[in-house]
Structures are given as C-alpha cells and as structure tokens.
C-alpha cells in the first residue's frame, strides 16, 4: 500500500517532508525561506544564531534543529518574528567589528545581507567595539576574531567536510571566542589550506583569503545583486576540485 508523504504547514503552505528531516530541511527543499546564518545544508545544524526561530503553537523553536513532525502548523514569515530576527541581527552587529565600509567582506557578507533583508537601518544598541586577537600568521588565510559571530560554521566545516579539526569555540558568554587547534594556537601552524571549506564558509569577514582583496569591486558583489533569501534557497556544499595544493 502506498503511503502519502507526511506534511507540515509553514505560513499555511503545505510542505512534504521525509522522516528525520528538520523543519529547515523540509522548508529549503520546498524553496520556502526561513532566515538563517549559522545553518548550512549538509553540515550538522547547531541552532547558534537563533535567526531561524519559528512559532509552533505557542512555542518558539529553531527550525534548523527541530524535527519536522506531521501536522505541525508553523509560523515563519511574520512581522513579530522578523522584528525579533532584526533585534538578534542588531545584537550581532554591535557585539563585533561590523563597520561595513572598512571590511573586505562587504557585499559578500551574510550578516550584512541579513540586515538588508530585515530592513535594519540602525544598530539600536550601544556598540561594544571589542578588541579581539587578529591572527595573520597563515600565508594565505587571515583570521580577524573581532568580526566573528560564533556561528560555528568553520568548526563544523573543518571537522565534517575537510576531515580536519582546525577550529573550536572556547570561553563562555561575552568571552566566547574562536580558537585554533595548533601547537601555538596560530593559524599558520595549523593544517588548514585555502581550498578547505572552513577557509571559505565564514558568513562574515572573520576568515578571509589573503591577496584577493577588492578583486570584485563594491557594488558588483553577491548581495549587491541578490538577496540572502535568493542565495539561501540554493546553497549546498560545493564539490571539492582537485587535491590540496597550497
């Protein structure tokens, strides 16, 4: 006997899912956008950024870590949730160095693109202006911790895709920071390479490839042309090309 696929409803739209999928998996497969920064299809979801918060009944859950269950009635694209997401985005902005005109990632930055998507005109909260350690020890990769939003994507990409274990997050609360797994704690002494996913997956300007600055002019970059919604609906881990060679 053929069984019909179970379904959930997101903002009234019926979406099929396979058992084991999260709400985010099912929504992305159906081309329904739930805002997210720390989620990347193919990597284990962590629920760090809280932008994918949705309402089920009277409960808020992160869509990237919550299993889809048949019959769920989910609210996603609502004024209240988007206002809360904007507040979360504002807090991410003020907690780090997110002065866009001085950052090479501008135009390619997901945090910035999320702020555009949510209509963020100001930072609302007082700026932290934190001074965190910069690591320029690697020949081709720069780590600027003052821009890190602790999304954990580089940690997961390194472990799950690159088969390495270059990054981790240490400390708690406002002392949380990215650490590098090498004898000196420096990126230059780690085994990260420029074609690792961990070197490219950073949504902000915390991990940058050196000597490519401004190759693409401002105004012609990813989020100058597309919204984060358009990009987010079509994201997948890229196939690795060739062997490591740096």
């Amino acid at each position, binding site marked *: 006997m053929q069984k019909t696929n179970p379904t959930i409803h997101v903002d009234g739209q019926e979406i099929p899912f396979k058992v084991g999928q999260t709400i985010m998996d099912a929504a992305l497969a159906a081309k329904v956008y739930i805002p997210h920064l720390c989620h990347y299809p193919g990597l284990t979801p962590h629920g760090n950024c809280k932008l994918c918060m949705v309402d089920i009944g009277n409960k808020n859950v992160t869509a990237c870590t919550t299993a889809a269950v048949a019959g769920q009635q989910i609210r996603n694209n609502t004024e209240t949730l988007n206002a809360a997401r904007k507040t979360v985005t504002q807090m991410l902005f003020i907690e780090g160095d997110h002065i866009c005109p001085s950052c090479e990632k501008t135009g390619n930055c997901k945090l910035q693109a999320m702020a*555009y998507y949510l209509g963020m005109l100001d930072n609302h909260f007082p700026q932290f202006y934190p001074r965190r350690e910069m690591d320029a020890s690697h020949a081709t990769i720069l780590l600027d911790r003052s821009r890190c939003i602790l999304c954990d994507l580089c940690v997961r990409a390194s472990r799950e895709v690159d088969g390495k274990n270059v990054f981790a997050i240490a400390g708690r609360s406002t002392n949380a920071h990215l650490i590098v797994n090498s004898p000196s704690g420096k990126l230059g002494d780690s085994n990260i390479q420029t074609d690792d996913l961990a070197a490219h997956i950073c949504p902000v300007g915390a991990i940058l490839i050196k000597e490519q600055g401004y190759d693409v002019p401002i105004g012609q970059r990813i989020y100058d042309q597309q919204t984060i919604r358009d990009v987010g609906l079509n994201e997948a881990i890229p196939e690795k090309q060739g062997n490591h060679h740096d």
Partner: protein
Amino acid sequence: MTDAKISIATTSLAGCFGCHMSFLDMDERLVTLLEHVEFNRSPLTDIKHCGPCDIGLVEGGLCNAENVQVLREFRANCKILVAVGACAINGGVPAMRNYFDLHECLEEVYLNGIGVNNPQIPNDVELPLLLDKVRPLSDVVRVDYYLPGCPPSADDFLQLLGPLLEGKQPIFPRNTFHYD
C-alpha cells in the same frame, strides 16, 4: 504642501564630507528641491550656527567635544534629526580607532609614525578635546531617522526628503539601501 519653504540644516562631524558630496549628486534635481527648501547652517551656506529648522541632516560620528556641541545645537533646533551615513549611525571608519587606546593612536600618528618631523602631540587650547572613543549620534541625542550608506546615494536622499517635505514618514524599500 504650503508655499512656506522647509528649512534644512546640514553638517559634517567626524565624517569625510562624502555624504555631502553624494547629496550634491542630485545634480539638476537640486533645482527642483530648492523650490521647496532653504538651507540654514550648512557647508553649502557657511552659516555658522544652526537656527530653528525643520530637518537636520548630520553626517559623521562624534570624535571630539566640538562635534558633541554642534550635534546638541542641531538637536535643540531641528524638528527632525537624521543620522546620515555609516559614521553617524555606528561611528564608521573613524570608529576603527576605538579598537586602540586614544594615546596609542596619538603616539602612532604624531610621535612614532613614518616621516614625522618635530614629533609632538598637538595640545593647543584652540583644538577641540578628543573623545576617548568615536561615538554614533544616538549615543548622545535622540535620532529620528537613519539613512544608511557610505555614502547614501542621491536617490536615497531624495527618497528620505520627498515624504518628509510632505509631512509624511519616509519608507525605505529594502532593496535600495546599503551599508557600504
């Protein structure tokens, strides 16, 4: 709209005048604008103090005591105060010095910098006192509207001013503004 002209004051605090240059990028549309507005204090008029105004456009953040004084004068005189550009909104590029001690910055620029002759940190009484950190406008006064961009485009200015001139609230379409 009545026949009375709307008065606008503008100033550049810790900014680069880029927002003002972008304002002038309205080009021939400035002529139409001038049929509806008159400028009070502004680099465009050279009036030295802000009088009672309808709209104040403030570019730049706050890096010294004079910036704070001018901003307070604007807030006291302008019915609507607009933070224009990245620096006014979050400190912008001048706020990059916030990651260092002020004294470190002064030493680097005036004592240890490459090619410095007669090294000494300026200390004339005429010079405005520097703030320890560069601050956005909203740290000191209430801001009514924010116009992001580095700089905002001439179209962005028109989009903001158009509804304000008609006494309406401006609406910023999400796909036009940028932070860079």
